């Protein structure tokens, strides 16, 4: 029998194989219940979101035609930033997960969707849906663990390159959409000569073509349409893209990097059962607590745990099942990692900083730098408390 092994003190040590299978059965039942109740209400939800996002985008871009006037610049930029975030997170990410495929609407389907992001949907679906969601937090398998440019787990070997990883992470945050595209292209693998050159060239062309179109749209065509407001429209679009990049990067960092999230050895997933897979998703993800607005703006990725358990269930259902999932964690004696956005962002950044050093240095640094002190330094004295339900 293969048991699931986390790399630090095993948080599942109290669970028998039968417990894990029971856990799997309970989650399967939860899943079946949602699938059976999917219907008109859900369809109306996603249609309303798409409709609202498109109207917001249109009106924001219309306002930006007069971006020379500072109020228009502000209103238009805020609107466009929100529109881009919603388009990427609540719509794009979730549609491409196949969360809405059951509607059989060819306009809202994972096989036909394309998003406002440098990474073409086909490439993203492969590296995200297939690789990341299958091998979640498995060292050496799930490249989302540090995206290949950072060390975010003690068990990842240290290299001098990681000394500058706070800088890498900051640059990645600013240019996040291009970072994702480069990551989906597997540039790292190509540079090491381990990638199929033909395929890389083909994919690279696609990425460049998409980037060219998007740049022409945001930095040439819409500014030109704005006439005298050309320059300010350009800066507005640039700002909206930057805001979207920083926001999505922060939310996504909170999914798997914060303190308390487990990672797994390659051999631990050999012969993994359905129950064990569920268990790995539960331990390998972290939630963000907050208001409905925060959940919406994060594309419901604030329910990262629920999303990882059921990646293809409609995102509007995650909030509904979260209490049930949390109760399940409690019953099986597992830690439901969750915290406010500032707390989780600080926790993830802390890892980026401390793990830029080799482990023994990092341990010493950890003793002096606590999450709370970083949070206080960055967000003021709001004293978020550790929240492990």
């Amino acid at each position: 029998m293969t048991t699931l092994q986390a790399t630090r003190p095993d948080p599942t040590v109290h669970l028998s194989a039968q417990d894990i299978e029971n856990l799997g059965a309970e989650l399967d039942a939860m899943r079946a219940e949602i699938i059976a109740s999917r219907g008109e209400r859900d369809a109306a939800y996603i249609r309303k979101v798409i409709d609202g996002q498109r109207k917001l985008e249109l009106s924001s871009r219309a306002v930006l035609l007069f971006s020379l006037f500072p109020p228009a610049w502000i209103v238009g930029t805020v609107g466009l930033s929100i529109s881009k975030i919603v388009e990427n997170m609540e719509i794009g990410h979730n549609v491409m997960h196949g969360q809405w495929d059951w509607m059989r609407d060819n306009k809202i389907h994972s096989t036909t969707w394309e998003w406002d992001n440098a990474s073409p949907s086909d490439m993203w679906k492969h590296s995200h849906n297939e690789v990341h969601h299958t091998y979640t937090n498995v060292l050496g398998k799930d490249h989302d663990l540090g995206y290949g440019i950072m060390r975010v787990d003690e068990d990842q070997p240290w290299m001098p390159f990681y000394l500058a990883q706070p800088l890498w992470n900051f640059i990645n945050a600013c240019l996040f959409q291009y970072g994702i595209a480069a990551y989906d292209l597997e540039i790292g693998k190509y540079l090491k000569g381990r990638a199929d050159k033909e395929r890389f060239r083909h994919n690279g062309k696609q990425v460049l073509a998409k980037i060219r179109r998007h740049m022409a749209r945001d930095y040439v065509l819409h500014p030109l349409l704005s006439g005298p407001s050309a320059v300010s429209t350009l800066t507005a679009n640039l700002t909206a893209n930057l805001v979207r990049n920083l926001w999505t990067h922060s939310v996504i960092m909170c999914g798997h990097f914060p303190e308390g999230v487990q990672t797994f050895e390659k051999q631990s997933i050999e012969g993994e059962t359905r129950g064990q897979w569920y268990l790995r998703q539960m331990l390998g993800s972290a939630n963000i607590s907050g208001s409905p607005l925060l959940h919406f703006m994060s594309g419901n990725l604030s329910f990262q745990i629920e999303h990882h358990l059921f990646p293809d269930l409609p995102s509007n259902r995650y909030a509904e099942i979260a209490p049930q999932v949390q109760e399940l964690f409690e019953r099986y004696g597992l830690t439901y990692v969750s915290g406010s956005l500032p707390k989780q962002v600080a926790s993830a950044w802390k890892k980026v900083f401390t793990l830029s050093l080799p482990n023994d240095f990092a341990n010493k640094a950890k003793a002096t730098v606590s999450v709370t002190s970083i949070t206080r330094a960055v967000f003021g004295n709001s004293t978020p408390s550790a929240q492990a339900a």
Partner: protein
Amino acid sequence: MTTTAPRLTAVGALRERVIKLAELATTPLVPADYLDIIDPLRSGAELRGRIVAIHPETRDAATLVIKPGRAWRTHTPGQYVRIGVDVNGIRQWRAYSLTSHTHRRDGYITITVKAIPDGTVSNHLVHHATVGTIVQLDQAAGEFTLGTQTPRKILFITAGSGITPVMGMLRNIVDENLDVVLVHSAPTAEDVIFAAELRQLHAEGRIRLVEKHTDTDGILDVGHLGDILDDLTERQTWACGPAGLLSALEQRFIDDGIADRLHTERFRPTVIATGDGGPVTFTKTGTVVENDGAQPLLDSGEAAGVLMPSGCRMGICFGCVAPLRQGAVRDLRTGEVTTATDGDNIQIQTCVSAAAGACDIDL
């Protein structure tokens, strides 16, 4: 012509450039995605319609009046239209006979739907559809029409909702001198769809209506059609109704040696043969499902979340065809097996085909 041609080209080129720019402005979407928010029925949009009225016909049938989008071309009486409706959030495509005048002044079209037991779409349309709803449409299609030369003597044999394409024809017949007999079966007098209109036509002498109320009269005996009319062989016959009725009619017309005078329309496929079944691979999505050899591939694919094109679900409209890349499928209506080897890409109708072994469908 020579003077206008260059100007047209210049306008065309300009138009093309504007479209290109609009596409760039809206990438990764297309301009239509935004225009659809404003007017889903505009010209140039994908064909859709809006339900503008719903009239109950009987306790389980209703007529839906639909305002089609600008792209709608007209139809020939007797034809059907494929309609895509969202039922409980899921897009479902079905085909229904058009029952409207081809040249209504308001340009609206009508379909008449009878709710069948357990019918997902028919029950929704009859009992739950609401005015204002947008539906997806296809252009009218179908061969069940009177043809270019309407014969002088016509016999219609219909049962249940089989009256709908015939009503589409009757409403559009302008020649008052035609000799039309309609033999219609329904369980009771109350179940006759378009009863008032049909009886009115009969009273006016436009048609001769023979109603058969099967709950009391028993079902129509095709062998005794001669009791109803004595000039069967002189007429062109159009029949629409349950499979049993149509099969009996076909046999009778063959026996009489006048099979070419019978035109039929089926609403559901007659399943003749089921096969062995096997694993079905949808190659584009990578989905693999087990098909039992009796269930249409369309249903298997839909159940597995594959975006399957679909239409009449009875093998007539070809809205569901997809390439069979390799493997074997069986036509549920005939039992005929179609096989393909890699690269053949044989187009098959998924709504009437089941697996006859392992097969790859290019969807």
